[in-house]
């Protein structure tokens, strides 16, 4: 009962909030020329960006600018991380970082993944946390929103898909920053730390010394959640009591995790002018979300298997969970954080019951149940293209998506994007499962250890960032491999869909009639859901069988 109330309030409430936010985001990202305030912002952002801010770019130029900006993001943060021991705002005197760790971390935060092969309170100076990592949490999320806005403009049939350096400012200054300024003060009032003072030395009641790390947590946490970043200020992320002091900060954080990804669907619908279509997409995503939540909550109600036979009171699995966050939190948060590409954790995923652990993996394999800010909807666009293609044939016409004919070229790009995701996850897992790189890094032997490797690459390719943290993933091999996976898994799924839209824009648009495939009804919704399952999940069934499912059936 308690579960149902919490889930309903958080998912339902956020869905309601997302609608006006989506409308606002559509205005903020795509004000058009009729909104005087929008035009003023556009002019301001063009002035800030200077010479590169052409009002309308070709899709190739747009992507080139996007990539250039991301190169700058990577380089600046790399430099800050590499020099942190010489830079200010380092009250605890954090030292130099391993070069492969710097590469991995810069790649991780540039790609909105926030896979962390370090522990924040152990390794990072406050400057690294704020100027390198938190900055990337803003601009990488903004990159995703900008890419979605560009995609939507292309589908809407605009003459150009916009200007990236303007879009990225719109997303940073008009969307993410205002949201952070709304949410962060509430987090502060709910008891979350926000200080630049270094760690404090405490003397416990029993007389022992305890070092208590702290820092500018609230600012960091807020954008971490709103931008589907997920990188924790502290190592254990949002299970840490200073990063998640109460049930209420936890509830608000869960809303923040899913809010912008939900609103992105509405923003997409508004820009393309097809809110009914957006509703169908939203419904499909919500369906997947609810199924996953139901599964996770059910599986996690089972007790910790290792305690079987001991005189321990009956309870749900409490290993890796925090009592103040409530019993629903572990599974619910695990689903939300992996449905979106957030990756922050409210419980230790490695210690989830085996089948519960499968749910977040499935979320990352699909990577489109709302997904990362901007990019989740872009991923869903790929599934839509495939669904439209198969369904379009079934109604006896050359497949069309909102009047855009889907032909061999679009198909090639869409299938390549879907292939890349499967290849990165399964290929990476295979490489590490068969070699000491992975075999010697797992904490638990057997199927669970396999799950740890599988989870790591799923998380990297889906740009999620959560992990089965028992895995010793700090090795150079993991740093480099997941770093590459994150980069490819981030940029190809942005480049390919925008190339698809570029190709669609160049074609004559077809008229719609009752003979064309409708994308605004329940039938198409079912088609889309089936496509997501078959193309997104079926590929991973063998891996799932050898990981979580094998572990489950091997339980005593």
């Amino acid at each position, binding site marked *: 009962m308690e579960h149902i109330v919490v889930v309903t309030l958080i998912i339902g409430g956020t869905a309601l909030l997302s609608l006006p936010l989506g409308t606002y985001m559509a205005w903020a990202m795509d004000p058009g020329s009729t909104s005087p305030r929008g035009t003023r912002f556009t002019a301001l952002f063009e002035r800030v960006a200077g010479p590169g801010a052409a009002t309308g770019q070709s899709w190739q130029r747009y992507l080139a600018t996007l990539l*250039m900006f991301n190169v700058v993001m990577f380089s600046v943060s790399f430099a800050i991380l590499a020099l942190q021991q010489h830079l200010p705002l380092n009250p605890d005197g954090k030292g130099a970082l391993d070069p492969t760790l710097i590469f991995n971390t810069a790649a991780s935060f540039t790609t909105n993944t926030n896979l962390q092969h370090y522990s924040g309170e152990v390794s990072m100076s406050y400057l690294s946390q704020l100027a390198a990592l938190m900055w990337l949490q803003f601009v990488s999320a903004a990159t995703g929103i900008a890419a979605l806005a560009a995609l939507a403009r292309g589908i809407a049939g605009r003459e150009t898909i916009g200007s990236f350096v303007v879009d990225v400012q719109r997303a940073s200054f008009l969307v993410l920053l205002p949201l952070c300024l709304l949410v962060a003060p509430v987090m*502060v009032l709910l008891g979350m730390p926000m200080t630049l003072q270094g760690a404090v030395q405490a003397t*416990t009641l029993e007389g022992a010394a305890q070092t208590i790390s702290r820092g500018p947590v609230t600012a960091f946490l807020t954008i971490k959640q709103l931008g589907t970043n997920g990188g924790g200020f502290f190592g254990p992320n949002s299970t840490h009591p200073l990063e998640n002091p109460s049930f209420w900060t936890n509830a608000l954080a869960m809303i923040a995790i899913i809010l912008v990804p939900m609103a992105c669907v509405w923003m997409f619908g508004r820009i393309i002018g097809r809110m009914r279509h957006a509703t169908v997409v939203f419904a499909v995503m919500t369906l997947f979300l609810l199924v996953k939540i139901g599964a996770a909550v059910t599986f996690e109600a089972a007790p910790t298997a290792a305690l079987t036979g001991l005189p321990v009171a009956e309870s749900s699995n409490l290993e890796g969970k925090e009592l103040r966050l409530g019993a629903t939190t572990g599974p619910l948060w695990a689903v939300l954080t992996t449905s979106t590409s957030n990756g922050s954790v409210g419980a230790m995923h490695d210690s989830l019951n085996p089948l519960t652990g499968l749910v977040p993996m499935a979320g990352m394999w699909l990577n489109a149940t709302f997904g990362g800010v901007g990019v989740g909807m872009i991923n869903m666009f790929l599934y839509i293209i495939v669904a439209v293609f198969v369904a379009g044939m079934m109604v006896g016409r050359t497949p069309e998506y909102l009047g855009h004919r889907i032909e061999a070229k679009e198909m090639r790009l869409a299938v390549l994007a879907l292939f890349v995701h499967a290849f990165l996850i399964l290929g990476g897992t295979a490489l590490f499962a068969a070699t000491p790189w992975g075999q010697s890094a797992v904490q638990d032997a057997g199927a669970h250890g396999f799950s740890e490797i599988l989870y790591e690459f799923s998380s990297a390719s889906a740009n999620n960032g959560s992990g089965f943290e028992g895995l010793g993933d700090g090795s150079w091999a993991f740093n480099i491999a997941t770093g590459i996976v994150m980069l490819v898994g981030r940029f190809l799924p942005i480049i390919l869909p925008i190339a698809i839209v570029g190709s669609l824009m160049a074609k004559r648009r077809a008229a719609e009639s009752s003979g064309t495939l409708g994308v605004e009804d329940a039938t198409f919704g079912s088609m889309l859901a089936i496509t997501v399952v078959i193309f997104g999940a079926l590929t991973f069934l063998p891996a799932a069988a050898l990981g979580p499912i094998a572990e489950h059936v091997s339980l005593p």
Partner: protein
Amino acid sequence: MSNLLSSLRVALATMAICVAGYTAVILGFAQALTPTSANGSLITNDAGTVVGSRLIAQAFSSPEYVWPRPSAVDYDAGGAGGSNLSPANPQITARAQELISAHGGASVDAPIPADLVTASGAGLDPHISLEGALFQAARVAEARGVEVSAIERMIEERAVTPGGPFTAGRIVNVLDLNLTLDADLAAPAASQ
């Protein structure tokens, strides 16, 4: 080339506003309105020494204190973490057996609450369940030479439902409880 220049200008602008500006605003807000929690909910004793944080579990092993949940990082608040053990891992079984005997044993009729034998996510969970606290009441009472009921009453008084109507069980902040125990009941000489 104009791409690079524009990118650098936008990087600078976002760095200035989203990092410097935003941090300053939230920092100012927090330090002005909620300085205690903003600085880590620290608890200072009469001598002015920091004894810990209300939000951070610390190690307790003396019988006169209520003990927190086990910690995979030995309550290191400078490097927190969970056990990350698979729920089927035998290490969990071994740890639970150890803890059960440390807590003076348990039986099928008087089982130990699960939270006392499972490590939390960060290893710093400041709370235990009400049942977990009551489970220890007898030991604490004995160590402090008071009636069990007195301890139980103090525990009950401090038990809260963390999410109001949205959570089922009640929990107790261990450090808070132990501070109250120390304040209200003289600690036995043995532990000094």
